[in-house]
């Protein structure tokens, strides 16, 4: 009976397989779900989901799959009935709604409600007939429900109903494809570390010492080696101003995380506006510029380049020619896109992190920039992929 539910989960990207199915079957056989939809929700969640990132997808799948069953869950219907009785006293109903409610007596209303519940096949928000939120139907939760399938209202008390819990989608914040917080960013960036032993040999090599001492017939022979040090060098380029303003907070978080990260040997951060035009800037007020040609001279190919920007601009901005001082120069300058290409070509590994959602990446300047840089969304998943991309070996030269 629950197998279609497992496929529903797989469709929504929750990795469940035979092992989970067997575990769930075992739990149900042992009667852990207490023969209720509630119990089933909790048991299934514990056994089928392995990460909080999948909790929201699970809730959604549960809602979609068991929506037809809510009638079967008599408890839920009972709660709806309870609320129905309570609703007449709600002060937040409009006069029209009150009038509507006055038109029915409680018995009629319940009968009509049951009928509607049978007819209703999906969720409705607004409108005047169906059960849902924010509508003028007598069976709504007028304006009180904050989100989801919350027909029960606030007066529920007691134990939480599975549909209601699922409907609230409280785990939305933990989805891995939404924008991330500082700590998650730090964890993602931590993967970007690489160590190398170089410099002065001032660390005692215990195993080496033992081996050397043994070879030396027991006479103590101390071996030292250089300590392991982080060896990742990063250049961070950030777009500021204009269309990036809505993401300023997010970008500043990424910046502070990168600054705090102790596992970079070197971190250089520069700013630009819209597109790189010959110069990048040391402060977000776009002063203290540095020529791109100078930057490329100062940093090696093994630096990792991370560009953060929405890559969203007027097409002419990509085509505008500027010289290496960042001045408009239609005869000798290079186009904005060419500057970007020079950056991409210089570094062995580079990525572009884009705060715009990937579905908006087609048919505008983002598409053009994504042909130059490997582009990832600025979400936890995207950052993880970008970091994995950065840590791979060098890219085939002249690929672009």
């Amino acid at each position: 009976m629950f197998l279609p539910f497992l496929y529903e989960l797989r469709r929504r990207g929750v990795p469940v397989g035979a092992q989970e199915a067997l575990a769930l079957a075992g739990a149900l056989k042992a009667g852990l779900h207490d023969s209720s939809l509630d119990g089933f929700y909790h048991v299934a969640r514990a056994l089928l989901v392995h990460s909080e990132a999948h909790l929201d997808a699970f809730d959604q799948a549960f809602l979609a799959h068991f929506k037809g069953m809510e009638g079967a869950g008599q408890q839920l219907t009972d709660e709806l009935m309870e609320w129905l009785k309570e609703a007449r006293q709600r002060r937040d109903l409009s006069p029209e709604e009150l009038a509507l409610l006055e038109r029915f007596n409680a018995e009629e209303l319940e009968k009509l409600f049951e009928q509607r519940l049978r007819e209703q096949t999906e969720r409705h928000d607004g409108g005047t007939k169906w059960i849902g939120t924010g509508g003028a139907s007598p069976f709504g939760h007028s304006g009180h429900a904050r989100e989801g399938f919350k027909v029960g209202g606030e007066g529920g008390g007691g134990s939480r109903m599975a549909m209601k819990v699922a409907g609230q989608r409280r785990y939305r914040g933990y989805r891995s494809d939404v924008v991330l917080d500082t700590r998650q960013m730090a964890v993602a960036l931590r993967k970007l570390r690489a160590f190398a032993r170089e410099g002065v040999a001032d660390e005692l090599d215990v195993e080496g010492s033992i081996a050397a001492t043994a070879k030396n017939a027991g006479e103590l022979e101390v071996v030292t080696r250089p300590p392991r040090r982080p060896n990742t060098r990063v250049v961070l380029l950030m777009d500021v101003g204009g269309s990036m303003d809505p993401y300023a907070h997010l970008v500043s978080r990424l910046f502070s995380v990168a600054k705090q990260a102790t596992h970079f040997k070197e971190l250089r951060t520069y700013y630009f506006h819209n597109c790189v035009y010959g110069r990048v800037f040391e402060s977000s007020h776009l002063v203290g510029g540095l020529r791109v040609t100078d930057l490329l001279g100062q940093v090696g190919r093994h630096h990792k380049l991370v560009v953060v920007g929405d890559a969203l601009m007027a097409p002419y901005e990509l085509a505008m020619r500027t010289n290496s001082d960042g001045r408009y120069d239609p005869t000798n300058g290079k186009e904005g896109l060419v500057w970007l290409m020079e950056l991409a070509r210089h570094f062995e590994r580079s990525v572009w992190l884009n705060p715009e959602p990937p579905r908006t990446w087609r048919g505008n300047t983002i598409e053009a920039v994504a042909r130059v840089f490997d582009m990832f969304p600025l979400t936890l998943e995207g950052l993880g992929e970008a970091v994995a991309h950065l840590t791979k070996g060098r890219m085939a030269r002249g690929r672009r």
Partner: protein
Amino acid sequence: MTSSPARFRGTDTYLSSEGLQSAVNCALTLQRPLLVRGEPGTGKTLLAEAVAESLGLRLLTWHVKSTTRAQDGLYVYDTVQRLYDSRFGEGDVRDIRHYIRLGPLGEAFASKERVVLLIDEVDKADVEFPNDLLHELDRMRFRVTETNEDVVATHRPVVVITSNNEKELPDAFLRRCVFHFIDFPDQELMRRIVSVHHPGLDESLSEQALKVFYELRNFTRLRKRPSTSELVDWIAVLKASGVTSLKLDENLPYLGALLKREQDLMAVAEAFGRRSRA
């Protein structure tokens, strides 16, 4: 799934939700490890104590550190002690078994009665650490190569594993676990938690403290959001100093107990100070 083991229903001092109880009972019945994740300060570690207390079992704890290896949990062969004893002629050097020291996992297997084993902060260790434990947790047995003896669990221990999500855990490991994510307590649960820690606290003070606390948690510019233990500490300070009324502005007393970062304190002073002046 042979016998129906005792059900977990929480204890007097540990308040648990329905989902959590269900997850614990799944782990008990299916005899799989229970993996608990959640924000710091949501009571992950305390859960194991509560499970042990409610089932009346002994609790063994294995605190995982960055240097911990899987082998440490099983057993350690104390070569240095044996060498030392042979040099000075103490102890029974002939019998290698005297120098095999069982780790927490080994002890849990060897125990005559069923125990609760807490593997705390499993993500602190190396990335490969959980994978090295897979076989032992699955079969509940391992071999001591020095003596060629098997340590087999007569009663499968109840294994509770906590993780702070510092590292991703391997999929193969996750598949074998029952998973539960402890939510941050909502205001109602938090009120009960506070009253457990500070019985007889002035009603209005606790109301105000909770209100300020959740306002701060919803303040998105914070780098580190305050958690349960910080709230409990803060209320203790407020109680001790006899504060009776609170308002979220720049003069909030003992804010340092809630916010531990300088930027956070400044951000709060800036945002809420301005509002109160306006």
